[in-house]
């Protein structure tokens, strides 16, 4: 498994009704690296992540996870999703469960971990994310930043091979963004392989090993963070980044 890509996409095409959302998308994500997907809203970032997790069926192309083709119709999709963690923009915590129950649901029900063991691991995660005292709370008693950190803990509880982060700070008040980004920084330090769709350009520039600029469902430009942010080749990338700078987001 050494340096073979964790996630590989080849010529992925996805349409919704008549409109093409992803066109001929290629992507390779090496182990222990962070890939940032940037681009305007509607450029296909979220769809790309949902396809990688098989929440959406693709129309054409293929996706591999650890060298195994997961878009083969005979694949056990539940088994694939078990190896991929996802954090959503809107947290999507389960409102009828406490924080602890949210985090232990998948380890217990999907991975058959004993309750005590699952709870111990959950408490460790919460402690690490600065939420040790919140285990017994219901999600609606938490701030947005706290909810999103719980969502990250929930995704990590099953020790995923790959973590997909879908604009996880987009719904947060500005002063809460930092606490969530810090968690992602820590995860990078641990060597977690991640793909994140984001509008936080400063953050993408800081943590990403690879940056892909999506435009109209096409990966228009890709490269290191330095190259994309410092010396974009395409006119459209330049224009996009200029608008971001004007908005004070970089």
């Amino acid at each position, binding site marked *: 498994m050494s340096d073979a890509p964790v996630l590989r996409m080849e010529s992925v095409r996805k349409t919704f009704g008549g409109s093409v959302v992803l066109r001929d998308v290629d992507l390779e994500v090496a182990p222990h690296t962070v890939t940032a997907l940037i681009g305007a809203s509607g450029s296909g970032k979220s769809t790309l992540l949902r396809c990688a997790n098989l929440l959406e069926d693709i129309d054409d192309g293929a996706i591999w996870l650890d060298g195994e083709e997961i878009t083969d119709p005979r694949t056990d999709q539940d088994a694939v999703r078990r190896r991929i963690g996802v954090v959503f923009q809107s947290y*999507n915590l389960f409102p009828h469960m406490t924080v602890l129950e949210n985090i232990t649901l998948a380890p217990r029900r999907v991975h058959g971990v004993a309750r005590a063991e699952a709870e111990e691991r959950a408490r460790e995660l919460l402690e690490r994310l600065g939420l040790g005292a919140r285990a017994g709370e219901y999600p609606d008693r938490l701030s947005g930043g706290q909810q999103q950190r719980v969502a990250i803990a929930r995704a990590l509880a099953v020790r995923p091979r790959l973590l997909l982060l879908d604009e996880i700070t987009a719904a947060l008040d500005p002063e809460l963004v930092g606490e969530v980004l810090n968690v992602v920084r820590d995860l990078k330090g641990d060597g977690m392989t991640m793909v994140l769709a984001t509008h936080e350009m400063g953050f993408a520039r800081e943590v990403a090993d690879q940056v892909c600029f999506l435009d109209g469902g096409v990966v228009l430009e890709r490269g290191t963070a330095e190259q994309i942010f410092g010396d974009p080749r395409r006119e459209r990338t330049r224009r996009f980044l200029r608008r971001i700078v004007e908005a004070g987001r970089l």
Partner: protein
Amino acid sequence: MTVTKEESGQEGADDNGDMSGGGDAYVPSRRRLERERYQRTRARRATAIAALSTLVTAVVLYLVVVGAPGWPRTKETFFSGQYAREAFPKVLEGLWLNVRLLFVCGVAVLVLGMLIAVARTLRGPVFFPLRVLAAAYTDFFRGLPLIINLMIVVLGVPALRLQGVTVDPVLLGGTALTLTYSAYVAEVFRAGIESVHPSQRAAARSLGLSNRQALRYVVLPQAVRRQVPPLLNDLVSLQKDTGLVSIGGAIDAVRAADIIVGRSLNYTPYIVAGLVFVALTIPMTRFTDWVTARMDGRRAQGGTT
């Protein structure tokens, strides 16, 4: 009194650490005292007016009813103390059957309704016939008048003289009630399932839960919680309709009253039976209102849906 109430409310409402005026001794301003004095006078006046108008209404109603030309006869036929005393114990005895029916049918209806609702959400080609059957079942039994359902089951089925099939009107009546009510309840559950946002299912699936696990651990608990008020509403309705099993001759509260009416040609026992049902449903409806209000309150506090 107003002062303490407001202060404790504030304390309870914010525990986010937002500072609220500090803990130093607060002395209500003269402006506030003046305002409260005025409000108290207004409140006292309002109470006095309400009491007076209630009294006037009651007297007028009493005079109109008692003074109506048919009143003595009505009183004798519908509100006879003698027949009421005779009927009451028998009606209560019969009511025990209604209560048992409510309990057994209630449980059966909830289970069957849930199964039908879940059957309608199943995916995959194997379940196609099940989906169609469940849909046909709810369409049919929601449209079929309960009284016709009861007559077919309670009166019609024994006429078949099938071996091994009961002719007990209570069992058959209970079956008919369950058939109709589980169709209603299935729709309530289905609406609940559909009201759970798709992102919840997506979150569950992305954790690796199978479709069935997502339904069981994530979708159904939320759906059921949300549907408690309409479910209780249906149970109140079922409680009344247990009285319909009397058409098959089962001696419930309605039938017990009927027997006395048939003998005496005095209708007071019906009134007694009716009031007993009303007395039974009132706590249930109040309970439903209370649950609904509590759930709305929680949602209004900014709970996520």
